[in-house]
C-alpha cells in the first residue's frame, strides 16, 4: 500500500483475513465460491471434460439417427439438429460466458473506477458532470442500449460486445466508487496526505482507492452475473456470439425452434447452465458483501 499507510498496513492485512473468516462461516457464500470455481475449472479444462467435439456434426459419421437424439447414456443431454453433443457444447459454452463476463467487467472497471473516483473526490462541476453522465446512461434500457451499440457494427466481433456491455455497466461501478470517495475524502488520513502536499492523483489512487476496494469487488462480482445474463439475451436475439459458437444464449435461441416439436433438451439445458453460473456469482457476491461488511444500494 501507499507510504502514508505504513503504520496500519498490518492491521489492513488483518481486515482481509477477518473478512475471510466471516466468509468461511457463511454457508451460502462458500457454496457460491465452490460453484464459481467449478465453472472456471470447467471452462479451463473443457477439452478434457467434454465427451465430444462441440463443433463436430455427428450426423456425418453416425447417420441420421443421431440428429436431435433425446438424452441417452451416450449423449447425456441429447444432441442438436446437426448431431452435435449438447453437453459438450454447454461445457465449451462456459468459456464464452466467462470470457465475456471477465472482459466486460474489466471494461466497466476501467471506465467506472476513475470516473467514480473523480466524481467523489471533486465536489462541484466535476461531480455534477459525471453524475449527469451516470444518470444519462442509467436512463437507457440496458439491453436495448447494448443492442443499439452492437447494431452499429455490421459484423460485431466479441470485442465490440465486451465494449458495448462495459459501456453500460460501468455506471454501477462508478456509483459505488463515488459514494465511497465522498465518505472517505474528509477522513484524517486523506487530510494528512493533503497536508503533506502529495499530488492529487496520488491521494486519489494510492491513498483513497485501496480503502474503497471492498464495495467495488462486491459490485463487480454481482455484476458478473448480470453481464452473463445480458450476453445470453444478446445471443438469444441474434446479436451476440454467432453460430457455430457454443454460446448458451445462442443455443437456446436456435433450440427454441424445436420446442414445439418436443425436442426440449436443446433449449432447456443451456438455460440451466446460465442459471447455475448466475446463481454462483450472486451467492459469491452476497457472501462477499456480508463478509466485507459493505452496504450497497441495489
Amino acid at each position, binding site marked *: 500500500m501507499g507510504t502514508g499507510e505504513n503504520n496500519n498496513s498490518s492491521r489492513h492485512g488483518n481486515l482481509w483475513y477477518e473478512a475471510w473468516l466471516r466468509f468461511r462461516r457463511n454457508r451460502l457464500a462458500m457454496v457460491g465460491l465452490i460453484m464459481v470455481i467449478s465453472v472456471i475449472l470447467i471452462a479451463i479444462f473443457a477439452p478434457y471434460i467434454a465427451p465430444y467435439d462441440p463443433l463436430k456434426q455427428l450426423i456425418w459419421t453416425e447417420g441420421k439417427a443421431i440428429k436431435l437424439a433425446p438424452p441417452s447414456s451416450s449423449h447425456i443431454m441429447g444432441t442438436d439438429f446437426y448431431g452435435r453433443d449438447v453437453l459438450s457444447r454447454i461445457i465449451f459454452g462456459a468459456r464464452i460466458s466467462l470470457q465475456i463476463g471477465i472482459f466486460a467487467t474489466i471494461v466497466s472497471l476501467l471506465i467506472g473506477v476513475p470516473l467514480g473516483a473523480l466524481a467523489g473526490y471533486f465536489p462541484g462541476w466535476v461531480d455534477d458532470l459525471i453524475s449527469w453522465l451516470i444518470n*444519462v446512461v442509467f436512463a437507457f434500457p440496458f*439491453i436495448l442500449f447494448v443492442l*443499439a*451499440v452492437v*447494431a452499429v457494427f455490421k459484423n460485431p466481433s466479441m470485442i465490440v460486445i465486451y465494449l458495448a456491455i462495459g459501456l453500460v455497466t460501468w455506471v454501477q461501478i462508478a456509483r459505488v466508487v463515488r459514494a465511497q470517495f465522498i465518505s472517505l475524502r474528509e477522513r484524517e488520513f486523506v487530510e494528512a496526505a493533503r497536508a503533506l502536499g502529495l499530488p492529487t492523483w496520488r491521494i486519489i489512487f494510492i491513498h483513497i482507492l485501496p480503502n474503497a476496494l471492498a464495495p467495488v469487488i462486491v459490485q463487480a462480482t454481482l455484476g458478473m452475473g448480470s453481464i452473463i445474463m445480458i450476453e445470453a*439475451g444478446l445471443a*438469444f436475439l441474434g446479436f451476440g456470439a454467432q453460430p457455430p459458437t457454443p454460446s448458451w444464449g445462442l443455443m437456446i435461441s436456435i433450440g*427454441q425452434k424445436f420446442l414445439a416439436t418436443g425436442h426440449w433438451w436443446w433449449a432447456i439445458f443451456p438455460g440451466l447452465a*446460465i*442459471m447455475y453460473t448466475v446463481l454462483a456469482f450472486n451467492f459469491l457476491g452476497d457472501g462477499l458483501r456480508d463478509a466485507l461488511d459493505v452496504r450497497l444500494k441495489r
Partner: protein
Amino acid sequence: MLSYIIRRLLYTIPVIWGVVTVVFLLMAVVPGDPARIMMGQRGDPETLARIRSDLGLDLPIHQQYFRFLKEVAKGDLGTSYRTNQKVSHAIVERFPATFRLAFWAMIFASAIGVTAGILSAVKQYSFFDYSAMFFAIAGVSAPVFWVGLILLFIFAYNLNVIPGVGYGEGSVLYLILPVITLGVRPAALIARLTRSCMLEVLNQDYIRTARAKGLGEKTVILKHALKNAMIPVITIIGTQLSALLSGAVLTETIFAWPGIGRLAVEALVARDFPMIRGTVIFMALIFLVANIVVDISYGFIDPRVRYS
C-alpha cells in the same frame, strides 16, 4: 413539496438532452448511407440525393444535430426507413400492449411476492420459507426468455391449455404466459425484500407492544407490521415497473407480443435507425418519468420523508 417536484422535473431536462445526444452520436457513427438503406438497390443518384437533402444528411454534422434536437423537442422522431410510418405514430400504436403486459406482470409479481414474503417471515426457517426463498433465488438467476420458453413448452405445446404466442386480439388467455414470464423476476425480488423487511419490523418494540396488549396475531401482522414493512417494498415495485416497461424486450420477442420492445428489436434487425433512435429515446423517457413518480410517492407513503 411543489418546489421539489419542479426541481426534479427541471433536472430531468439535461438528462433527456444527454440521452438524445448519445443516441444521435451513436447513430451518426453508423457506417453506410441511410438513403441507400431506404431505397435498397433501386435508387438512382437523383432520388438518393433528394432523400439525403430531405433527411438533412447533406448538412454538416453539427447542423444535423441541431435539426435533430429541434425535431425531438417537437415530438417528431422521424420516419421509419422500413415502413415509412412516422416513428412517433408507431410508438403510440405499440405502447398500450407493452403497458398492459407490464402492468399485469407487476400486479402478478406484487401479489405473489408480498404474500410469499409475509408467509416466509412469519414462518421463518419453516419448509415453506426455505422453498419460497429457493424459488426466489432461482427466479432472479434464470434468464427471462428461458423461463418463457419453458412455460410455452409446458402449457402451450404439451398441455395445450394455452393457445400459444401472439396478441390474440387482446384475449386474456394470450396474456397469461407473458405476464408470468415477465413477472417472475420482480416477484422474486419483492418476495425477498418483503421477507427481510417483515423480519426487521417484527422485532420492533411497537410490535411487542401490540402483542402485549392482546391483539390477535393476524391484526399484528397485517395491520401493524405490514404497513411499515411495505415502505421499501413499494419503492421496489415502482422501480421494477419502470424496468418492466422498458425491459419487456425479450418477453415480447418470445411471445410475439406487439409492444415497444418487439418494435425495437424488429428495428434493430432491419437496421431501421430512426425507429431504433425513437424507441430508445421513448423508453428512456418512460424510465425517467416513472422514477420521478416513485420519488414523489415516497412522501405520501412514508410521512417521515421530507423533501428539501
